[in-house]
């Protein structure tokens, strides 16, 4: 049973029940009275010949200040109250337009509708105070919060008692009036004492719990003194001032203590400001003017001055909801939503009912129609509007999301990541970096914090207090942050792959330059014959041109390369008066496979070497070339009608050896037959074998 009672919702319900009980008692007292039936707004001037003097209608007898005056006042009240013990009464009254009438009026019992607005207002202030306190109490149980509940109880008690005698018509019996006045004083004393205690204990405990007894005893004595009239004048106003000053001192100490906790401080600022504003306005405008003889009447009537205390409750609610004063958890929102939605829906229901009732044409069908097509959608809209918490969104943040992964350094990425999280979730505190991060995004501390897993390059993060502390993290935040992580991971990995690709490409080009250009230049350097040296250098420059032109591709269309080779070869042989027999139609039959650079380069070297040999030694009339691609193998057949050459005797050996080596390196074959009737090269290069080495560039899509 005990555990059930301590459930937060029961604490809330308990405090609320007490509040409504006090209100009910006040309502019973105020209505359980005879009522002279005069027109609305009329002021009584005399009853049964007894004139009513201004003091008799005073709202608050405390304003008379001295016990002597108060005793006289209570005696007159008893006297007037006795006159009401009849069926009718002779009264003189003045209507708002200034007409005075004296006539016999009936006396009936009082109804709720006879009560002035100020009665409802005072009780509403008291109820609000208790409900807010009950809400906070439901969420947290410590000395500071208990002081808040006691404070609100005192406020409501004081307001409820004052509302009963403040709303009296003509008079209450003196002894009842004295009791109510005492209740009012007791409430005020409880309120003031609890205010002091609260700032001693909340948000930080400035003094140990035992010190709470000091204000309780001191202000308790003040109250006893007033109750038993130990002094000539009321001590009540002095007590109120002392309480305010003491509370203020502790409030300032609390504020100073919170300087390293910006969130606490922001909340406390609201709370302190509104509390002292409420108390000071009440005191200055209602208690002080009469208590210190500055004026006959309060500037604002006490009934309405109670409204200033609502500042305190509003400030408290703001502090709690915006800045998590009291470190409240998610219950806070659920309870408010519960109360808020209930009140809203009830109010709309009542309004609708009242309105439909007043419509002469109202029928069940009309009610059904309005209910289903207007009311329920509207109600749902309101619920969605107020109940659905605000959610984080990455809409419009695409550039920022992508730029995280594209930032050049790890630190820059971390900074951009934090900026992004800040702009999306607006956490109220510094983003924490986690050394050990969760595998998945998760909520912690009942939604106060959101933990984000680390990625390949970023550590995990913990965000606290979503939307500057205005809301809790929820499951939709998990989805948002999950999506963010995914996008970031994809961007980052693509970038890494891209960089890897660029580096590989750079290495490939460097290798090409080294293997081809370097080797050829070295060959040229070590070649004794001038002509051959020139030829090698020219080939090197041509190869370099190829790298400059095509070096950023990883493979080449075979067809295009063969076209170029054909023209190049034709230019060379035709200068010597030799015919090139290389029909273009032959090549048109070919498909146009894409072949890697090494194959292209090897083909080019072969063609050049063969041409050079033929021009130098064989001296043919014509050179013939045929190219074909059969079953993934490129075949090159080159022959001439020259006189052939002696491989060993001529210096052609090196070049030919080179052709063989390069062909074999690609897994191909090279067959040379030379005789006095001509020379023939039959070369086969496998295309698919080389193609089997996939290029990473193609995969990451930069080619």
């Amino acid at each position, binding site marked *: 049973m005990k555990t059930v009672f301590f459930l937060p919702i029961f604490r809330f319900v308990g405090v609320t029940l007490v509040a409504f009980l006090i209100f009910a008692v006040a309502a019973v007292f105020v209505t359980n009275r005879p009522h002279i039936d005069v027109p609305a707004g009329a002021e009584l001037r005399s009853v049964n010949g007894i004139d009513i003097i201004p003091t008799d209608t005073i709202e608050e007898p405390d304003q008379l200040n001295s016990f002597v005056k108060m005793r006289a006042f209570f005696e007159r009240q008893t006297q007037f109250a006795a006159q009401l013990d009849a069926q009718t009464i002779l009264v003189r009254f003045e209507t708002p337009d200034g007409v005075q009438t004296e006539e016999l009026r009936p006396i009936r019992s009082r109804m709720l509708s006879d009560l002035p607005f100020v009665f409802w207002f005072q009780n509403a202030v008291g109820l609000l105070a208790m409900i807010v306190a009950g809400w906070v109490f439901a969420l947290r149980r410590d000395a500071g919060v208990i002081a808040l509940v006691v404070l609100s109880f005192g406020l409501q008690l004081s307001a409820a008692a004052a509302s009963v005698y403040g709303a009296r018509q003509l008079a209450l019996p003196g002894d009842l009036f004295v009791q109510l006045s005492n209740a009012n004083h007791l409430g005020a004393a409880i309120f003031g004492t609890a205010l002091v205690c609260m700032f001693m204990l909340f948000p930080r405990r400035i003094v140990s719990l035992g010190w709470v007894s000091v204000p309780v005893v001191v202000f308790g004595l003040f109250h006893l003194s007033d109750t038993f009239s130990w002094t000539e004048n009321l001590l009540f106003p002095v007590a109120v001032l002392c309480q305010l000053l003491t509370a203020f001192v502790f409030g300032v100490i609390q504020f100073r203590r919170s300087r390293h906790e910006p969130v606490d401080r922001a909340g406390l600022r609201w709370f302190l400001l509104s509390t002292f504003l409420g108390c000071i306005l009440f005191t200055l405008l209602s208690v002080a003017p009469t208590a210190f003889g500055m004026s006959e009447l309060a500037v604002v009537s006490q009934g309405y001055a109670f409204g200033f205390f609502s500042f305190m409750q509003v400030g408290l609610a703001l502090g709690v909801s915006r800045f998590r004063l009291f470190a409240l958890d998610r219950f806070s929102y659920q309870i408010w939503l519960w109360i808020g939605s209930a009140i809203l829906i009830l109010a709309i229901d009542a309004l609708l009912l009242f309105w439909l009732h007043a419509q002469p044409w109202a029928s069940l069908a009309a009610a059904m129609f309005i209910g289903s097509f207007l009311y329920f959608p509207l109600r749902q809209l309101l619920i969605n509007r107020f109940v659905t918490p605000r959610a984080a969104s990455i809409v419009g943040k695409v550039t920022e999301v992508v730029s995280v992964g594209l930032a050049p350094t790890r630190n820059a990425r971390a900074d951009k990541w934090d900026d992004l999280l800040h702009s999306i979730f607006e956490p109220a505190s510094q983003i924490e970096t986690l050394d050990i991060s969760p595998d998945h995004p998760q909520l912690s501390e009942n939604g106060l914090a959101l933990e984000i897993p680390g990625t390949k390059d970023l550590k995990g993060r913990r965000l606290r207090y979503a939307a500057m502390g205005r809301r809790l993290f929820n499951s939709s935040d998990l989805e948002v942050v999950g999506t963010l992580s995914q996008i970031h991971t994809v961007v980052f990995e693509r970038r890494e792959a891209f960089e890897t690709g660029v580096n590989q490409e750079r290495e490939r080009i460097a290798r090409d330059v080294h293997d081809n250009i370097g080797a050829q230049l070295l060959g040229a350097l070590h070649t004794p014959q001038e002509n051959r040296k*020139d030829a090698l250098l*020219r080939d090197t420059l041509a190869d370099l*041109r190829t790298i400059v032109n095509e070096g950023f591709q990883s493979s080449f269309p075979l067809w*295009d390369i063969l076209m170029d080779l*054909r*023209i190049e070869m034709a230019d*060379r042989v035709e*200068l010597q008066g030799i015919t090139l027999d290389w029909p*273009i139609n032959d090549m048109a039959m070919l498909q146009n496979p894409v072949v890697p650079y090494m194959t292209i380069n090897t083909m080019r070297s072969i063609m050049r070497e063969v041409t050079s040999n033929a021009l130098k030694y064989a001296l043919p009339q014509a050179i013939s070339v045929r190219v074909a691609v059969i079953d993934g193998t490129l075949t090159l057949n080159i022959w001439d009608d020259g006189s052939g050459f002696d491989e060993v005797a001529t210096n052609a050996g090196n070049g030919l050896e080179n052709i063989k080596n390069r062909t074999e390196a690609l897994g191909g074959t090279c067959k040379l037959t030379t005789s006095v009737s001509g020379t023939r090269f039959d070369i086969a290069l496998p295309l698919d074998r080389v193609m089997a080495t996939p290029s990473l560039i193609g995969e990451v899509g930069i080619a």
Partner: protein
Amino acid sequence: MMKSALIVEDIPETLSWLEQLVSEVFSGITIHTATSVRGALKLCSEVQFDLALIDLSLPDGEGYAVFRQLGAKQPEVIKIAATVMGSDSAIVSALSAGAQGYILKSDPDALLKKNLGNIHDGIPPLSPAVARRVMEHFRFTGPVFDSAGILTKRETEVLAHIARGLRVSDTASALGIEASTASSHIKAIYRKLGVSSRAEATTEATRMGLIR
């Protein structure tokens, strides 16, 4: 009759080799030389040339400026881009800037001389690789420009044949036209390259190899 030639080249050995080459092809020609863009531009406003052989990469900039200057001041002069490492896209840019032809400095002397002679005789050089670049250039830029920059059907055919590996003479016979007609088509293509490249951005894009 070639009287006066301009050779712009920054490598001294190459410069004297080119001088030798030009004086062998065009006997009795006076040769002026420059080793920078600035020097070349200065000569352009001082001397009337018949032939200009311009290296594309110079210490203080690229040769395109000289082509444009000559195109504006001496439209009659035959302008030839001389390149060794110049990529195909650089050649297309030179043609766009007003060059009537180009030579590869790494070619054997005999071939170079023949090409120089051909350019002089109105037979512009055009390798399949460069022809492919030119085709792509028009594919990307053609429709955007005025009709003066759009290739005719015949010109497109000539270009396509050359891109497929045929030489000018082969192209002419394949299309059933005179070789000189094919040559005029190529010259027209070069001119249109200039027209369609008037937008500097396109020239730049081509030069950077962005348009391929």
